[in-house]
């Protein structure tokens, strides 16, 4: 269980007064007050766990850690109440806590609501370094997440499960988005093209050949990586998808 396993790390990072307050504040009000009672300092968690990885990548502050720790021990009713009245940083903490709640699958609507949010930090909290979408999103919810990140010019590489959740419908969506962007004289993040590699088609080939003619170097590199995977070009040297934004 998340709270139990995290307790040693969290308590050892807190000052005695903070710890004393936190131990008696496992309540919705405690969740709210955490920002007043616990320092807003980023801490790094040395544990080899997927929550430590998420927390370190998202740079959780101590008050954020405390909020997630409290949230993981609250009832469903209490959590819904907190979601319904959340201030921005509270909302971010709740969204980042979703994979660590006792029945994560029950929170799908709250997770997709975060994808729908136009508040940058809230979208980032579900999209980046959060294992929830990879584990629990339906295919259509997953595809919306990817498209929203691309639409907002945010970095695709920070999404967990990019390759494991590839699908035919998403590949088609990417081609449509690229066409729309090109028609408007705008660019699409070059990294998006890795999502079509497993789904070759005549149309995809035509578009990748157009991509290869774009002036942006990262577009040319992306085109070469796709074409190489389809055995239509040489593997580029010194370039992988990790290098392409």
């Amino acid at each position, binding site marked *: 269980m998340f709270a139990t396993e995290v307790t040693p790390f969290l308590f050892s990072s807190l000052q005695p007064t903070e710890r004393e307050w936190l131990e008696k504040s496992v309540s919705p009000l405690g969740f*709210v007050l955490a920002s007043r009672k616990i320092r807003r300092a980023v801490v790094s968690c040395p544990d080899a766990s997927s929550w430590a990885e998420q927390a370190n990548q998202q740079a959780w502050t101590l008050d954020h850690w405390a909020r997630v720790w409290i949230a993981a021990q609250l009832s469903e009713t209490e959590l819904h109440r907190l979601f*319904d*009245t*959340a*201030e921005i940083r*509270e909302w971010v903490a709740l969204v980042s806590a979703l994979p660590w709640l006792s029945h994560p699958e029950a929170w799908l609507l709250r997770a997709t609501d975060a994808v729908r949010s136009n508040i940058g*930090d809230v979208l980032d909290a579900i999209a980046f370094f959060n294992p929830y979408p990879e584990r629990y999103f339906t295919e259509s919810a997953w595809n919306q997440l990817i498209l929203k990140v691309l639409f907002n010019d*945010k970095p695709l590489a920070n999404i967990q499960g990019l390759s494991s959740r590839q699908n035919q419908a998403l590949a088609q969506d990417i081609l449509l988005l690229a066409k729309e962007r090109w028609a408007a004289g705008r660019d699409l993040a070059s990294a998006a093209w890795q999502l079509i590699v497993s789904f070759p088609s005549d149309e995809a080939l035509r578009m990748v050949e157009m991509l290869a003619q774009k002036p942006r170097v990262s577009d040319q590199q992306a085109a070469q990586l796709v074409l190489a995977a389809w055995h239509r070009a040489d593997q580029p040297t010194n370039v992988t998808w990790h290098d392409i934004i």
Partner: protein
Amino acid sequence: MCSSHDLPQNHPSHFEGSPSESYAHVVFDQPWESYVAGMTFFDPHIHMTSRTTDDYQALADAGVRGIIEPAFWLGQPRTGLSTFQDYFNSLIGWERFRSSQFGIRHFCTIGLNSREANNEALAEQVMDILPLYLYKEGVVGVGEIGFDDQTPAEEKYYRAQLELAKEAGLPVQVHTPHRNKKQGTERSMAIALEHGLAPHQVIIDHNNEETVRSVLDQGFYAAFTIYPFTKMGNERMVDIVKHYGSERIMVNSAADWGISDPLAVPKTAALMKVRGISEEDIRMVTFTNAFTAFAQSGQLHLDDFTQPVTVDQSQTFQGNTVLRGGQQPRVDKQSGIIR
């Protein structure tokens, strides 16, 4: 009341007008913005929910770095608790984000406004959810509360909210009525004292020439709303500061859905400068006093105003590896081309 447009019936041999009129010839001979270039401002009362992104851009350009949005009446009476809750949520959520995109720190005060206190059935439900919001980050007071018609229901919920403020250790932002203003202001102050609030924890808003002396004498903060036609004009405001000095006085715009001016604070600063008020006094009434009054909430820190908002955002997600919501791209409003 006479206005500067009235033609005198007689031609007096010596000046008999107001102090404003005596130096009415001292006007801006450059664009007003140039007088306040490089200065920064804090507007402690503005309803951004009712304003556009153009206004945010204009505030940022004029040097406004922080604002407080008090919870108020939306122009249309609410019919249920959910709309109150969603409104409070927008003050601590969406509006705060919208503001941050323009580099402006957004804070709010939360409360049940006086008009809607008269719908007692609904008011009771709102009172139940208020404590949930008063402890949120960035909530710097209980407000705007007080009297409108001065009914018994308004008094009941004003008193109840003073108790909430006391319990939460938050300052109170008091709206004073348009009708029977002087009496309503005195009554608001007397009730606050009766509930054991210290005068310095209470900001009495929408003052005028008739209310200011008593407010200051009793030790309260006196806020002035620079709002065309119905509240203060900035020329009258200059007179007030010349007469009373800058201690515990602050100006705000209260810009909302009415004909109002979100740039009222920097425009007033510009006029003060033209009319010879010291930069130190200008700073007090357009930044420091409001900051000090609401910092009693423990939710305002001066460091926040010396760093760009985006720096603070990146603290949550160390470094810039994650692209932030960040600043909005600038749009050239003069151009006929939209890209």
